[in-house]
């Protein structure tokens, strides 16, 4: 019981992508300070690419984050192509979608099975699941099978699941064979029952913490993650050129990463935002087999971000199977040279954790004059802090261990990526 003053600290929060810190002060039984900060050592990518040829930029900015590297790669290609007036072929878009769906499957599976599931089963790690227990045994093997399915899809589509080497401006340097992609269909089909099993687990979970944040996502007709109209929860469309202005940046003294609010208010991006705003565009098979889970949306419960991610894995599987069937492996070449003039490109895609923005100013000699990148975790940072504050303020009577555990679960629900930021979360509570 901590009803007056006390100090609690957690260091090295585990099972998240990267690192952050949270410091809280509790005085006279009240939470007087709550700072959630991201501690990643800045690596200055947007500075480093100034003056660099645009052809090398997608591969360079992919190194911002190993977890979401192909999202940065795809967003960078879209940004450059929008600036210099290249429209990718439909085959290029199929391959980019397959690369991205592989990322969605693998990345969401890592988050859900490896980071979140141990909390629900009161285990230290997915590797500590009891192989003698039929359900835990099944889930451990589902974890590896699901990640493998996503990993393989990205490898075949883009040459590698991390920092894919073959996607280029205007196309792919190597066209995957139709038979190699088609050979994945049985694995994708057999993955459906595994993810439906996981959807059932998250649907039954009674974890609940509601947010007042608005939601921001790309709305489109096919839930492609790569295109769409940027839309708020009120249904208002936002012009891409305006969004960099409307996203207000705050440099917090306790955080390496910049925090962003939309029109001065907290907003949330990611799977929950996408399901809230665009679930009508999910694949018909996904809508059929996840109907009960989809009835939970729209939702303000941040823990439904986990359920939303599981549904998105099913969609990624169903959509990929369709795309592979339509794929023809035409012998398309990438442009031999790139003609540019003074231009500005804006690229917006849905990375696994939400809206990712790249904006480049490009010179007539095809180099970067100026670059700006806004990552999903920067947008969710204020919401994570607010959610922690909300929960702790209402649970000051809980033990130190319970506070630590629940703060970690709240952070994990948002699936922050601190490589686009950090490496461990230090939680310090002063009472």
């Amino acid at each position, binding site marked *: 019981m901590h009803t007056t003053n006390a100090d609690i600290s957690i260091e090295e929060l585990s099972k998240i992508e990267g690192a952050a810190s949270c410091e809280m002060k509790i005085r006279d039984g009240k939470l007087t300070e709550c700072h959630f900060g991201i501690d990643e050592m800045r690596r200055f990518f947007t500075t*480093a690419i100034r003056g660099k040829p645009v052809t090398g930029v997608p591969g*360079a900015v992919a190194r911002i*984050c190993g977890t979401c590297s192909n999202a940065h790669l795809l967003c960078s290609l879209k940004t450059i192509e929008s600036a210099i007036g290249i429209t990718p072929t439909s085959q290029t878009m199929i391959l980019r979608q397959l690369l991205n769906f592989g990322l969605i499957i*693998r990345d969401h599976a890592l988050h859900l099975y490896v980071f979140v599931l141990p909390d629900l089963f009161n285990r230290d790690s997915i590797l500590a699941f009891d192989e003698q227990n039929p359900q835990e045994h099944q889930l451990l093997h589902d974890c590896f*099978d699901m990640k493998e399915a996503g990993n393989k899809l990205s490898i075949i589509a883009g040459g590698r*699941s991390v920092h894919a080497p073959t996607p280029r401006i205007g196309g792919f340097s190597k066209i995957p064979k139709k038979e190699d992609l088609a050979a994945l269909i049985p694995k994708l089909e057999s993955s459906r029952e595994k993810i439906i099993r996981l959807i059932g687990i998250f649907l039954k979970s009674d974890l609940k913490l509601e947010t007042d944040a608005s939601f921001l996502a790309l709305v489109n007709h096919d839930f492609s993650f790569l295109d769409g109209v940027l839309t708020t929860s009120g249904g208002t469309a936002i012009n891409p050129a305006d969004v960099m202005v409307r996203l207000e940046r705050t440099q917090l003294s306790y955080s390496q990463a910049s925090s962003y609010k939309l029109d001065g208010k907290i907003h949330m991006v990611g799977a929950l935002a996408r399901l809230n705003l665009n679930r009508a565009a999910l694949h018909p098979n996904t809508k059929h087999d996840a109907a009960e889970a989809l009835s939970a949306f729209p939702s303000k419960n941040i823990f439904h971000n986990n359920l939303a991610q599981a549904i998105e894995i099913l969609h990624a599987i169903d959509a990929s199977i369709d795309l592979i069937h339509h794929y023809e492996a035409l012998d398309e070449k990438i442009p031999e040279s790139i003609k540019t003039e003074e231009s500005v490109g804006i690229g917006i895609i849905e990375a696994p954790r939400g809206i990712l923005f790249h904006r480049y100013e490009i010179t007539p000699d095809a180099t970067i004059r100026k670059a700006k990148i806004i990552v999903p975790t920067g947008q969710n940072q204020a919401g994570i802090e607010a959610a922690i504050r909300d929960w702790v303020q209402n649970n000051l009577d809980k033990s130190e261990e319970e506070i630590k555990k629940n703060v970690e679960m709240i952070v994990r629900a948002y699936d922050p990526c601190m490589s686009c930021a950090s*490496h461990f979360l230090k939680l310090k509570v002063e009472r």
Partner: protein
Amino acid sequence: MDQKRLKVGWFTFSCCEDSTIIFTELLNQHYMDWKNKIEFVHAKVLQTHNRWEKMDVAFVEGAIASKDQEEKLKKIRSLATKLVAIGACACTGMPSAQRNHFDDATKEEIKVLLDAFSQADKVKTLEEVVPVDEKVQGCPMVESQFLMVLNKYLKEFKII
């Protein structure tokens, strides 16, 4: 599970964690083989309860960008019989060390941020801070090189 297992730590400093992702993907194929041969004493990506104790092999990815990171790396070195640098940032510093090569004007531009968060003036490779026994190159690490090094130590520590 009485069999002797290789005590392994997996640590990350300044980088994009791409090799951590490759490592978690290697588990898909290899975990059933490794579970009786490897004990993870420290691997934040996999488990909550991590221990600072003697270990056979520390795999370390990322470059060293602050005094605190230097001290932590030295601590890992003192606990690990063997230390393996994992991936480009750990082995060569790049691309995390790209700010080392900025011109003076750009260095001045970023100085306020470096100072505000106690980042070192220069980003270092692991080898510039502690002795390194092996390097697994690549961005991300080359899987076959990692497996070769791991198998070498499984034999050297008489696990297999």
